[in-house]
């Protein structure tokens, strides 16, 4: 093959005076920032939606269900384009102008990715809560806890433990999904990947490096959640056995 391998190009200077590896590091930084911020938003909103879908209140369930249906059935890239190019046109003019001119891109991207991921988190939180026996809720209520206290102290702590494995893979996914935000101008890792290919044509080297970088991010997230799983493990309790019946 007449491909010209050149691993040293990473240390060459780019047009803006930085080295190529600087571009990669900066992309890695943005990927991490966008991913973690979106994940935080998704966990908060997804938990709230998941809880809503398990309450006895029909209208709360309906809102939660509708949210999940909408955000799961439209591709992420389309959702991001909606937030960037459609929503500013639909809101009042002044708000729209502010969104287009003053609101940092990264905020809209984080909101877009966060709301998209929240639908998936909501599914898991709901499944976790529903996998608990009804008696747990009754026991909380019978002790005089309010419905909310029952969620807070009894149902959610167990639900999170049960769905932690599923959450882990969702948390690992967020790095991959964050790559789509390049399309709305976020200078994250994939954006830099694309840009470096355009400048240097060293496709194979950069593909290997960026692949390893995404691998590393997913791996770190996996270890972090494995650590949390160990720390929150309850002695004498086998989690996961409940799902089968």
């Amino acid at each position, binding site marked *: 093959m007449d491909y010209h391998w050149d691993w040293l190009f990473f240390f060459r200077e780019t047009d803006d005076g930085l080295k190529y590896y600087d571009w990669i590091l900066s992309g890695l930084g943005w990927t991490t920032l966008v991913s973690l911020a979106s994940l935080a938003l998704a966990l908060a909103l997804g938990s709230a939606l998941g809880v809503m879908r398990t309450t006895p209140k029909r209208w709360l369930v309906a809102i939660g269900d509708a949210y999940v249906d909408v955000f799961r059935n439209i591709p992420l890239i389309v959702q991001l384009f909606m937030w960037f190019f459609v929503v500013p046109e639909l809101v009042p003019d002044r708000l729209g102008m502010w969104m287009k001119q003053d609101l940092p891109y990264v905020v809209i991207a984080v909101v877009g990715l966060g709301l998209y991921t929240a639908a998936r988190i909501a599914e898991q939180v709901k499944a976790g809560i529903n996998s608990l026996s009804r008696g747990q809720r009754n026991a909380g209520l*019978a*002790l005089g806890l309010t419905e909310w206290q029952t969620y807070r102290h009894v149902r959610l702590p167990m639900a999170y433990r049960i769905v932690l494995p599923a959450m882990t893979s969702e948390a690992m996914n967020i790095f991959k999904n964050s790559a789509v935000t390049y399309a709305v101008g976020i200078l994250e890792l994939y954006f830099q990947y694309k840009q470096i290919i355009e400048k240097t044509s060293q496709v194979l080297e950069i593909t290997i490096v960026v692949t390893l970088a995404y691998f590393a991010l997913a791996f770190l997230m996996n270890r972090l959640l494995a650590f949390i799983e160990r720390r929150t493990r*309850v002695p*004498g309790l086998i989690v996961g056995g409940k799902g089968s019946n």
Partner: protein
Amino acid sequence: MIEIKNVSKWYGSFQVLTDCTTNVKKSEVVVVCGPSGSGKSTLIKCVNALEPFQKGSIVVNGVAVEDPKTNLPKLRAQVGMVFQNFELFPHMTITDNLTIAQIKVLGRSREEAVDKGLKLLDRVGLKAQAAKYPGQLSGGQQQRVAIARALAMDPICMLFDEPTSALDPEMINEVLDVMVQLAHEGMTMMCVTHEMGFARKVAHRVIFMDRGAIVEDAAKDDFFGQPRSERAQNFLAKILHH
């Protein structure tokens, strides 16, 4: 203490409780029995409003359970309940199980709550298990903790929903012993159970339910001596000659 009057309940069009009426006086021990699906668990869950009902009324210590203005958490905090499957909170230590509601509902300080919890734990003979998690205890031990958890709230009455039917036979007595002791101390108790030995020993009255209705409501001696309804006779015959 507990006045149940003409209570009826439906799941959709299916009637699960039909016009149930009975009273439990202070310090009285009432045993509710009947075949499975007779509505006895549903009825006892209506008393602390874990199950809503569509007709009739239940008054606990002067408070109407079905009244939408009733502060249910406050009412439930006064009514202790013990469940068939224990329902200890698996992610909390035994101590936390005993103290969580004292702290969150009654507003007791942590020290006060722990003190109270450990005293009751000692009473059910499990003081050594305080730092363990429910999953590390046997079923009988878990149920005794569950009773202590309910008692920690200083309830004015106790509801037992088949407290021994999920237990292995060798563990039933350790739980019944605690219940007998409670009865002797004058606790007001409403117990759904098939343990007729327990009923004979401490019950003042026995209620027999079938198909959602109270078929027989009699003093203990009358119930065991000469049950009036044929269904209660059949049920007793089956359960006693087993």
